[in-house]
């Protein structure tokens, strides 16, 4: 491995100087409100932990009185679906690796030669070679997108 010597410039643009402060404050306030709303709706989920603690403290007895425990059944269904689909997905990946991992199933293509490229575009090999050596070109196309003229500038 070779460590890059290039000191990469900081590419992230946060526009500290150009974006009005009022917009930044608005974004922060709205985001805090969104989080508060989320935690408000999640409050029943936190009650589950309280019930869990109380249930454990009372000696792991009958769970019927604890309303929040009912979520377990639903979560169990979800978890089942997720585990099965995840296993199928990973099984598929492992199967592919074992079955085809080191097998060369398809023929490799040789690198395309310039004359093949020229032919596919309806050009002469000399014409294409000149364009491939040019540094600045101007290309003209017709309305259908066909190449009509190429000026080699340098």
């Amino acid at each position, binding site marked *: 491995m070779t460590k890059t010597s290039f000191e990469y410039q900081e590419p992230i643009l946060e526009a500290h100087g150009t974006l009005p402060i009022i917009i930044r404050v608005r974004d922060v306030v709205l985001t805090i409100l969104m989080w508060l709303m989320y935690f408000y709706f999640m409050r029943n989920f936190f009650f589950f932990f309280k019930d869990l603690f109380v249930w454990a403290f009372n000696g792991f007895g009958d769970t019927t009185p604890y309303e929040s425990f009912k979520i377990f059944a639903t979560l169990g269904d979800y978890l089942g679906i997720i585990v099965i689909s995840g296993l199928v997905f990973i099984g598929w990946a492992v199967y592919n690796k074992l079955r085809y991992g080191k097998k060369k199933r398809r023929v490799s293509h040789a690198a395309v030669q310039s004359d093949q490229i020229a032919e596919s575009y309806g050009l002469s090999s000399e014409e294409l070679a000149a364009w491939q050596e040019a540094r600045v*070109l101007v290309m003209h196309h017709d309305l259908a997108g066909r190449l009509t003229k190429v000026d080699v500038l340098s």
Partner: protein
Amino acid sequence: MKQKFLGVLIIMALVTTCLTTGLILDFIFFYPLFMSFIWIIGGVYFYFHWERQSPGAEQAPLLKTYPFISILIPCFNESRNVVETIEAASRQNWPHFEIIAINDGSKDNTGVILDQLAEQYPNLRVIHFAQNQGKAMALRMAALVAKGEFFVSVDGDALLHPNATAYLIKPMLENPRVGAVTGNPRIRTRATLLGKIQVGEFSSIIGLIKRAQRVYGHIFTISGVIAAFRRSALHNCGYWDVNMITEDIDISWQLQLRHWQIQYEPCAITWILMPETLKGLWQQRLRWAQGGAEVYFKSLTMIWHWSDRRMWMLVLDFCLGTTWACAYMLSIMLWIVGKFMILPTDLFVPTIWPPAFWGLALASVSLLQFIVAMLIERRYDRKLLRSVGWTIWYPFIFWALSLFTTIVGLPKAFFTSSKKRALWVSPDRGFR
């Protein structure tokens, strides 16, 4: 046109099935939940299988050979960005390469700047188009005059990491059936709320999806902003289609339909500009949605051969995503109609808000997905952890945007002539 009718019929059949079986609300809830977990599982598997041992983007891999390569940079009205794009491209840790910048009939002074840069950088070549022809044509013409067998394609406003080329070319040198490799776009524009949400989205949605699809074996699309191609693979599938509005999705499908592999390389980083206004974001995402639908319609009659069976999951994924958007929109419409007239019991939608538990489950799973993605991706982006606080928006914004762009993009793709040249203007590129 036949393909388009077939494509719409399949989606209508799926929506009707949801509706008539009374599963519409279940589908609206379970589809995103299920997909979130598939992406998480795929992302984690990819990380442990391929990614964890990698030294990371800051160290270039050592290769056995370093063939001559061509970096293709299509530019349309990029006068503001092209100088730094060319500069970043010129600093690749690669011994022999040329840069081909294509000035696609720009209205600003991109052409003048490129001519000046050509004098400054000896390996920079410039193609000027007399008139705007679109990105696909720009790439086609650059590929025509390029000297390398391998191409790296990067947008005119993106900054390639110095080691990106090495990471992109490596899989193609190791496996002759790899036709393309897509890299890891990281967002630069993080001034506004929209910018910050997209930072999370690119990790959580795009990064995890690419990883999961790589685990499956086929990728829905390379990222047009950073990808590498083998010339013989492109030649084999006829290069980029100038009539497709998202040439990157189309070339991905065409390559895979000819059994070329596409790989995802997270260490191949490029820094990109994204829209930071709602209008800009809408335009961009609508184009993506329309492009996906165009490719779906185009490919629908080509994929039914048994040898193409691995593409079926990509089609199914697209169909289910579109069905989800249509089903959600239909449920909203039925809810509104139900306010004014009596509907049959099966069609009556009492509320468009998911039951409290469902909504919270979806939001929580989305946040879990983001946390997993961030743990995987933080090695590529030192400031990623700063995005944590903004993630609360992501479940709402992403799914809402997906819903509306799909609903508008599908008919646009249906009614757009398949022979019309795909030309588009980039939306805003954020604040500086």
